[in-house]
């Protein structure tokens, strides 16, 4: 499988504080690749750099064979990013929000309609999309934002803690949506500190702590290597 994203020696520091100390990983076409680690491990910083929000302090990132640092506009055309604490414009109706976002990516009105139709199907919010986003529950807003991130069928969807703050049922729905869209060709790079969720969702996993990748592989490979029954135990073992 060819790589959609290649990260080599990625470093990032905020002043004297080192957030990423040189990490390497690849995301292959059509796979869910997860970064797991505790708070402050460097997950969000990594995702933000790949989403072109932050600039790296060192290392190389190649996206579809192109240098991310040199061609951020090209990258933005092909990716979508769902931040952990994302919000939508509260005074907009759900449908207007989807149309507004689709307009940035669509080249024709027909394509825009396709994007919006797809998003409407993902959200399963029906007539509630005709009401203002400010009236939505957290779960509804998250589904709207996830639909926004997936409606354009991006080459790479970057999802930061996609189920953060959601109840069990909403989290389950979100995971199912992500899995469904991967089958349609979108690669996913996600972060989470919920290791059970990662085990369910991901094809491959990288364990990250203090800006360094401790280990990487498929969940079963990692469990076998560390003789653990789940990823939480793998993480504890790799810290030793």
């Amino acid at each position, binding site marked *: 499988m060819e790589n959609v994203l290649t990260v080599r020696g990625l470093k990032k520091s905020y002043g004297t504080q080192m*957030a990423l100390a040189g990490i390497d990983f690849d995301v292959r076409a059509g796979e869910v690749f997860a970064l797991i680690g505790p708070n402050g491990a460097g997950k969000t910083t990594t995702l933000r750099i790949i*989403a*072109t929000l932050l600039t790296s302090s060192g290392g190389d990132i190649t996206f579809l064979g192109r240098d991310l640092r040199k061609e951020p506009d090209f990258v933005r055309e092909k*990716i*979508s990013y*769902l931040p952990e604490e994302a*919000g939508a414009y509260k005074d907009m109706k759900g449908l207007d929000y989807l149309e507004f976002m689709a307009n940035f990516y669509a080249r024709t009105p027909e394509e825009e309609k396709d994007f919006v139709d797809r998003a409407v199907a993902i959200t399963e919010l029906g007539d509630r999309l005709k009401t203002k986003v400010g009236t939505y529950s957290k779960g509804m807003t998250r589904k709207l*934002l996830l639909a926004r991130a997936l409606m354009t069928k991006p080459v790479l969807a970057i999802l930061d803690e996609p189920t953060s703050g959601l109840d069990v049922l909403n989290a389950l729905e979100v995971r199912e949506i992500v899995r469904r869209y991967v089958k349609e060709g979108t690669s996913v790079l996600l972060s989470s500190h919920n290791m059970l969720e990662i085990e369910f969702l991901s094809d491959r996993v990288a364990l990250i702590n203090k800006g360094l990748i401790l280990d990487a592989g498929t969940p079963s490979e990692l469990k076998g290597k560390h003789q653990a029954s789940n990823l939480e135990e793998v993480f504890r073992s790799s810290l030793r």
Partner: protein
Amino acid sequence: MKRFTNLLKKEIKELVTKQLVISLAFTVILFNFIGQVSKKEVQKATGIQTISALDQDGSPASQALIKGLESARFKILDQSGKTKDEAIETAKAGESKLLLVIPEGFGESLTELKPSEIETYSFMRSFSLIGARGQIVVQSVISALNEALSNNFLSEKLPEHDPASLKRPIKSKDFVVVQDMMAEGSANMVAGMISQQSLLIPVVLMMIVIYSSQMVISAVAMEKQNKTLETLLTVPIRRTSIITAKMLAAGLVGLISAGVYMFAFRGFIGGIGEEAAQAGAQAGAPAIMQKLGLTFSASGYAILGLSIFLAILVALALAMILGVLAEDFRSAQTMIMPLMFMVMIPYFISLFADMNTIALPLKIFILAIPFTHPFLVSQNLYLGNYGMIVAGLAYMLVVFVALVIFAARIFSTDKILTMKLRFGKKKTAAA
């Protein structure tokens, strides 16, 4: 372009809220209402007013005084036959604003060339300036009578002399020189006319700068507060387009809001200002201004417009940067303060000080504030200081470009997400 229009539409929709429309409509209605009420009061005050007169003398001189008041559009209620106390009580109970008591012997004193005394009692039922106008008019009638009577005395006693020359042996003929132009008139009047003409510039500038800047700062701060900024920064649209769309939307909505407020303000001022202005306008003043070259040509207005436009652009760019520093909507509200001071400082200094005579360090400081230059444009246009005007315009353009580059740089780097200003401390947020 499609993406830019998409964003611009969203920015405008976000700014034109129900609250804004209601607040604008309310202001127009309120200012118009106050204007109309004030207009009626002014009309009442400048219209026929009722005063009571108690003529205890009944001489031709006292009759002349009362006739003089009648010709000055006063309705006189004759209190003849009453005592002074009765007349005061009657006048107080009625609608008279003033009671005029001409004592016995008034006419006789005048003929004997002795100072005569009349008494006025003003009934202050309110403390408005317009309410006190009655007494001012009575005083002017008395002073006109004084003038006429003293002229008569002098003509009788010194028939070979002109009374006016005797009373004012030294006369001054005043000329005002501006550049190469000269006209007869007083410098005070010319300065007054100029300040009246250029009064609108700071008001317009302050309104637009404050409204537009507040909108830009809030627009950026709201994106941060609602956690929509990160998403917006990853969509395929240039960062400069994001800045431009926000600035353009705030500029447009700010311009319209300021226009509506100005319209409402005119409705208010129109009520009390027009008649007062007409009363205050000095005859021949426009001709003198014309003669001195102190009028704006079409190109003058164009230059002034350009200067104000550049000042607005500078304010918007500055507001954009301040918006990035704001953490949320509430802190954005306080960010507007430095901008307001930057507009108010040159306004007050141009009002009270002469830029040519102030100390050099202060002059440099004031000229370094970009908003100073629109205030100086009209003066410089009148005085033909075109070098100063061009330098001012160029300076504002340079500041604007520098600020936009700086803003674009912030938007293109990590700083858009990491720059924060809280209680005067710059904090860098780690992810």
